[in-house]
């Protein structure tokens, strides 16, 4: 990984740095890589749209096969899935997955222009519904349905900031107290500035190979990717989410029993043949700290309504039974969209390979990532050793 920060430099620099580090860690030469899978950034112009090729050129064009993928926050997981598909099909032995971004200050916003048939444009123009507005709506629902408090949301950030103290790649290493968070201004009630992740520059990369190839290099007990989910929702989806103005209607068609977010974890559990009780560590998308609580339930770590208890009894801190966001999460990193899902995988890889230093979760053997992006993208990667 390239550390997360805010420098406004060329995203290619961050991506190349991360890629070279990943190759070095894996003791793989760029010339051995049969496939480069890039995660796209839409904020860096054309080079970002063809991120895979842009990174390949920076590393040195050598004829390697390439793909570039965009799925909003799930872009990195999609890029990883593409690489995995190439390997599992036998088309290549070794692939490099890389994503990087340079992001502007302030709210993420649509491209210039007038597009009255673009729901993402309309939600800004007609309603003023920024991303934090959606997070605020869901946080208010937790308060209404489960009695969640603003202190609960602050405690998620406190926990994650404690983890981030030991992560040199995190943009923010400061440990926060509840008072610090409650002193920060409201952005979208009930959520405060320090509870909503910012946007960052960053780059992350992983090298993946077939099991046979790893063995041939003498890696006997590799960290394996057991499952990847790239779910879309099912119709009708009754939960309002980015970037829509309205939900589907359930007037005459019943929603699936399993909600969209729940379906993401379910997919990887089924593919890997395990259940949530088998998971040792998780990296989830805390775009807002309240969202992390939703994920505890959506991934099946506890029943609906119990997430606040799980947080408060220390279960999801390093040292607890199911540490969540040992990296520090988005709260400590800020979001570098195409790199973020890859960064989640990096953290779990280090956890399972016992290379997480002071963030180490003891005996971590199964880890899960989760995030969701705009327009119906949901992703999860399950790693095990």
């Amino acid at each position, binding site marked *: 990984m390239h550390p997360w920060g805010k420098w406004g430099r060329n995203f290619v620099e961050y991506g190349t740095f991360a890629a070279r580090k990943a190759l070095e860690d894996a003791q793989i030469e760029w010339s051995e890589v049969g496939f480069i899978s890039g995660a796209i950034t839409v904020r860096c112009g054309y080079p970002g749209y063809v991120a895979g090729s842009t990174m390949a050129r920076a590393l040195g064009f050598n004829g390697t096969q390439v793909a570039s993928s965009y799925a909003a926050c799930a872009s990195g997981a999609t890029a990883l899935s593409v690489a995995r598909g190439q390997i599992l099909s036998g088309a290549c032995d070794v692939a490099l997955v890389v994503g990087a971004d340079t992001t502007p200050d302030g709210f993420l916003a649509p491209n210039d222009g007038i597009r009255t048939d673009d*729901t993402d444009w*309309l939600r*800004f123009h007609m309603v003023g519904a920024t991303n934090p507005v959606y997070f605020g709506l869901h946080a208010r629902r937790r308060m209404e349905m489960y009695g969640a408090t603003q202190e609960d949301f602050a405690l998620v950030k406190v926990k994650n900031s404690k983890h981030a103290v030991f992560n040199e790649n995190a943009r923010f290493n400061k440990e926060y107290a509840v008072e610090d968070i409650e002193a920060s201004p409201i952005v*979208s009630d009930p959520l405060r500035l320090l509870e909503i992740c910012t946007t960052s520059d960053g780059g992350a990369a992983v090298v993946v190979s077939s099991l046979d190839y790893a063995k041939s290099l003498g890696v006997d007990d590799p960290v394996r990717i057991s499952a990847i989910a790239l779910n879309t929702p099912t119709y009708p989806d009754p939960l309002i989410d980015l970037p829509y103005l*309205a*939900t589907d*209607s359930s007037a005459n068609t019943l929603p699936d029993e399993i909600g969209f977010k729940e379906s993401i974890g379910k997919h990887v559990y089924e593919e890997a043949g395990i259940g949530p009780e088998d998971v040792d560590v998780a990296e989830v998308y805390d775009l807002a700290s309240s969202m992390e609580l939703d994920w505890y339930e959506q991934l099946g770590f506890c029943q609906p309504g119990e997430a606040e208890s799980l947080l408060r009894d220390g279960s999801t801190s390093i040292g607890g039974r199911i540490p969540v966001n040992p990296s520090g999460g988005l709260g400590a990193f800020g979001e570098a969209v195409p790199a973020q899902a890859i960064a989640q995988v990096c953290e779990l890889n280090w956890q399972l390979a016992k290379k997480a230093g002071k963030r180490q979760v003891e005996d971590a053997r199964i880890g899960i990532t989760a995030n969701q992006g705009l327009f119906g993208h949901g992703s999860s990667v399950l790693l095990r050793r």
Partner: protein
Amino acid sequence: METAPDLCALLTRKETVTKDTKIEVPAVEGFFTVEEESHLIGGRFKKSGNYCFPKNLGGSDPGFPEDEIEEVLLSRVGKIWSYTNSAYPPPPPFIAAEPYEPIVIAAVELEQEKMVILGQVVNGYSVDDLSVGMRVEVTVGTLYEDSEYRYLTWMWSPLPEEEKQGKN
């Protein structure tokens, strides 16, 4: 900053002349009616009977391939499913007032259509005045204005009975 000429192509001649002589027009045509009791303009799938909003931007029901959409006026009254605000001015393409007053946004559930629709809450309400379950009706309000026009969007307005009862 959007100017009237940029948006002229979107307007029909459904205008009302107001007291201060500014012409009121929807900021984007086709999403709501402008009348004494305004309605959201939605779509209704003919075969499945499900609704969508906006009328041309709903997702399809995979169980009803090639279903056709007819234009319908959606129910006017709903219940607040959740609410929040935007303490900072949203970026373009939102046109923020100067000076900016935090806009309040509600996600409102329509009972008949069984769907939740976002919209600003009319001026004069803060998040402290709202509660989940509160009944609101759709109306129109000013999104922004220039020297000639007042551009409208749909908004949610708490029903008078809610105010009398007060927030629980």
